[in-house]
């Protein structure tokens, strides 16, 4: 019972998450000769949800609309769902940690805030050529200089905006 509880209910210690996530890098190469990465798959979602079929980049890079990348994305969503179900936290919530707890904005403004941040993530990941999984985990694990550089600037960017948000909207405390 203790073991089940540690896996499915209690938050994992950092090393447990790190081991599972890190093992994905060699496993995906062994089984599929493919690099771990999530953000490239958002191009498939663009092709599915937005009128973009005539854009050159989508046309050449995303010949198979429902590629394995879409299945990976669906899997990650299901993994989050499974975690919520098994830990007893299932349910739709409008909470987003200390942001919604402290800022106290109306829901529409919250939605705009996260949407705008999402645009920066999507655009930035494509210009940088990858995201936290493709660059920071997969790339650094393979000692790629471009990934080390990208990760340094991911972190610098995060430090800048998180601190601005904290001072402007979250009372500077915390």
């Amino acid at each position, binding site marked *: 019972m203790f073991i089940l509880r540690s896996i499915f209910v209690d938050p994992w210690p950092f090393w447990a998450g790190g081991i599972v*996530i890190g*093992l994905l890098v060699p496993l995906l190469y062994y089984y599929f000769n493919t690099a771990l990465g999530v953000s490239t798959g958002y191009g498939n979602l663009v092709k599915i949800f937005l009128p973009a079929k005539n854009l050159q980049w989508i046309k050449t890079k995303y010949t198979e609309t429902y590629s394995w990348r879409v299945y990976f994305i669906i899997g990650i969503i299901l993994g989050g769902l499974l975690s*919520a179900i098994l830990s007893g936290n299932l349910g739709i919530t409008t909470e987003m940690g200390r942001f919604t707890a402290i800022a106290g904005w109306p829901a529409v403004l919250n939605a705009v805030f996260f949407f705008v941040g999402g645009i920066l993530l*999507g655009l930035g990941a494509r210009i940088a050529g990858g995201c936290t999984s493709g660059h920071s985990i997969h790339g650094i694990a393979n000692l790629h200089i471009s990934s080390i550089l990208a990760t340094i600037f991911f972190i610098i960017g995060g430090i800048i905006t998180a601190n601005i948000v904290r001072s402007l909207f979250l009372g500077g405390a915390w």
Partner: protein
Amino acid sequence: MDKKLGFLAFGILFGFALSRVGASDYDLIVGMFVGQDYKLVGVMATAIVVGALGMQVLKKFAQPVKSGEPLKISYKELKKWSIAGALLFGFGWGITGACPGTVLAQVGEGKLFGLFTFTGMICGTYIYARLKEKHPDL
């Protein structure tokens, strides 16, 4: 193993791990950037070390890979605008407390505003596709 089903299964494992370790938690990600909580630094550092060791084992003992092909490691080239893109990505990371993988776990957990981050990411990728029409060096 069928590639699509395989990635579905590995995706479930990935999303489950991200969620259980707290990577889908706004407070942990933003807490890392404001210097209050370094748990996720530990997660990423462990993942990198385990990934690096795993790759060494793979290169030594498991070549060629399962399909019989030689191992082909993908390298992401540094382009003219890569660093600027990385900075933009970081801005989004610090604002939303999420990245392209963890936001999917958030959506699965039922976090409504994660759905807006997710939608924004699709639109940001669309903006990239539009920009790339006129600026092929992006």
